[in-house]
């Protein structure tokens, strides 16, 4: 056995690139961090952006991934339960908050989540709670506010936050619930009507971890370290993410 | 009265393969068209029917102008009202003998069309194949269905391209009787292509012999 195996596992020797699977909502921030990583280590990062659930399934089937950054804890926990994470490498690297957005042209006055019950609002888009982390958090908010029942017939489930944005931007729905980072990116195309109380949903944490059996575990860890570093955090904040430790 | 005066060339890329230059006129009644294989008989019938257009010239049936290159007239096939027996029959493969014949009958009620078709089947001695599809018929049976189909659409001119070449002598003679009586009733021009001297002699009020795309001899009554 051994020799080649061992020398293969030795860090830095022939490592030229690592593969990072990350939630597609992290694309802009991570791309920038990836450039920083390259400047610092000389190694490139191959990003594989997709829906967190799909990324999870790829890893479960043995896709050659070094680092996984998820938009929801559920997917990361599922991998942990299957012993697919390198022990001790999991960290929360960012937080997000949930906002209620309405079309720019909206004539209904909405200032809080409870206004969603207003009969003038016919359709409200949220992520599908079963598949989209943002939808899960939105469901918690509605549940807490006792709105779930009242809104039952108004809810439109989207398969990603982007779809919620599209619906709101195009005025197909009267309101939608998305992450603040998304609302921020959309800029003036939508109006943010309210921000969800942090207490009304479980913390929106973005976990990251090294995958068990990663080809380049040390280089992978270095990437995570960079994300956690002040430089990395600064980049994330530039795109609207909140540091995991701080509150809003 | 059918008047023909046409020129037509077949080309392939830049070679002229064949040139037709025909002019004659015949009256209602039989006109037997003979000539060696490849002389242009079928091509002539196709021009009369409107399937191919002459390069230039005139085709007139009575007072109806089928084609006139100068006046830019080229009547559509479906308005020319010809009864065409194709050399290769062209029976509709998805229709039975009765359906093939009934297809062309000009009657609005489908029962009427059926009755007429059955009448034609018995005139041509093929009642027994009424419900068969073309691929279930013998060559001569197919040919008779094609003949029946062409004559039952009440045409203003009948174009028969070797219509009895695939039947035996006995049947042929019976069918010729039927063809003659059909012409007798309709009083329209019957252009009859054949290689068979006996048929030619029997029908030949008018005879046109073409060769290499030209009228080489004509006896017109």
């Amino acid at each position, binding site marked *: 056995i051994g020799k080649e195996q061992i020398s293969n596992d030795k860090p830095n020797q022939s490592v030229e690139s690592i593969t990072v699977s990350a939630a597609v909502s992290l694309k802009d921030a991570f791309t920038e961090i990836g450039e920083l990583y390259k400047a610092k280590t000389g190694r490139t990062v191959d990003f594989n952006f997709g829906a967190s659930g*799909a990324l999870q399934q790829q890893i479960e089937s043995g896709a050659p991934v070094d680092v996984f950054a998820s938009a929801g804890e559920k997917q990361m926990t599922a991998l942990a339960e299957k012993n697919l994470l390198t022990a001790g490498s999991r960290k929360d690297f960012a937080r997000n908050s949930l906002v209620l957005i309405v079309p720019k042209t909206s004539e209904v006055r909405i200032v809080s989540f409870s206004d969603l019950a207003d009969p003038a609002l016919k359709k409200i888009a949220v992520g599908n709670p079963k598949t989209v982390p943002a939808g899960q958090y939105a469901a918690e908010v509605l549940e807490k506010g006792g709105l779930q029942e009242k809104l039952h017939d108004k809810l439109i489930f989207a398969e990603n936050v982007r779809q919620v944005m599209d*619906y709101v931007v195009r005025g197909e729905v009267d309101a939608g619930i998305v992450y603040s980072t998304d609302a921020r990116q959309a800029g003036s195309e939508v109006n943010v009507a309210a921000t969800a109380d942090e207490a009304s949903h479980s913390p929106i944490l973005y976990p990251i971890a090294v995958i068990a059996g990663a080809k380049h575990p040390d280089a992978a860890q270095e990437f995570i370290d960079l994300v956690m570093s002040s430089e990395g955090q600064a980049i994330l904040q530039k795109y609207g993410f909140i540091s995991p430790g701080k509150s809003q | 009265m059918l008047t023909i005066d046409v020129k037509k060339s077949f080309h392939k890329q830049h070679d002229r393969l064949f040139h037709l230059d025909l002019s004659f006129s015949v009256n209602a009644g039989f006109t037997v068209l003979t000539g060696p294989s490849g002389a242009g008989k079928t091509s002539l019938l196709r021009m009369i029917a*409107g399937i191919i257009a002459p390069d230039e010239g005139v085709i007139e049936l009575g007072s109806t102008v089928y084609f006139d290159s100068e006046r830019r007239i080229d009547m559509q096939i479906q308005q020319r009202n010809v009864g*065409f027996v194709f050399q290769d029959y062209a029976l*509709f493969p998805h229709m039975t003998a009765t359906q093939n014949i009934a297809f062309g009958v000009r009657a609005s009620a489908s029962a009427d069309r059926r009755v007429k078709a059955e009448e034609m089947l018995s005139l041509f001695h093929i009642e027994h194949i009424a419900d068969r599809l073309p691929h279930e018929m013998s060559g001569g049976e197919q040919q008779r269905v094609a003949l029946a189909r062409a004559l039952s659409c009440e045409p203003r001119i009948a174009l028969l391209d070797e219509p009895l070449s695939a039947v035996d002598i006995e049947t042929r003679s019976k069918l010729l009787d039927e063809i003659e009586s059909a012409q007798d009733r309709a009083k329209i021009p019957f252009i009859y292509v054949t290689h068979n001297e006996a048929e030619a002699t029997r029908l030949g009020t008018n005879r046109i012999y073409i060769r290499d795309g030209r009228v080489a001899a004509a006896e017109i009554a």
Partner: protein
Amino acid sequence: MIFDALKLSLFVVCCSTAIVGIAGVAFSYLLAKSSFRGKDLLDAFLTMPLVLPPTVTGYYLIVLLGRRGILGSYIYELTGWSFAFTWEGAVVAAVVVSLPLMIKASRASIESVNTDYETASYTLGKGKLETFLRITLPLARRGIFAGLVLAFARALGEFGATLMIAGNIPGKTQTMPLAIYEAVASGDDHRAQVLAVVLTAVSIAAIYLTNKISRTAFYG
């Protein structure tokens, strides 16, 4: 739940296949039998939904037919109704993505019909339309049938564009593929498998059945 999704799926697919059948044959006729300026462009345009990711097609549909869409806003003004988030929207999505399949398959078979038969029909005094319906179509039946099966199957599996325009409302617009996707994406493997097996069984049954029918119809 499964039953709801299945019922809806079958309903949507039947509507869309019927529409695609008629529109597909009409377009095939146009493309195969007539010539006009921009024919190739029309052809390419009709093939587009095959190339675009369905989500993009769905996005274009929203832009066109949504409540504020280019066409949709007129509809909404006139009727107060819009395609967005309705089963009709799902039908439109299914039609758009499956029409190209129907057109390509039926056009090829219509063009393969020996024109001698059409000519014979013309000499018997039949016009273009009657000839097409009674001669060309029956002779092109295999290709047309193949096109219908393709369109049916594609509509049954349609998902990306449907999701965009019809949303994913259980019992209202959630078709089988949407339910399967939801189960797979939420990691509910068991449910996903049950649904996939049901969809597979239904489609295998449908295809099996149509094969049998076609055999009797063609070889009778």
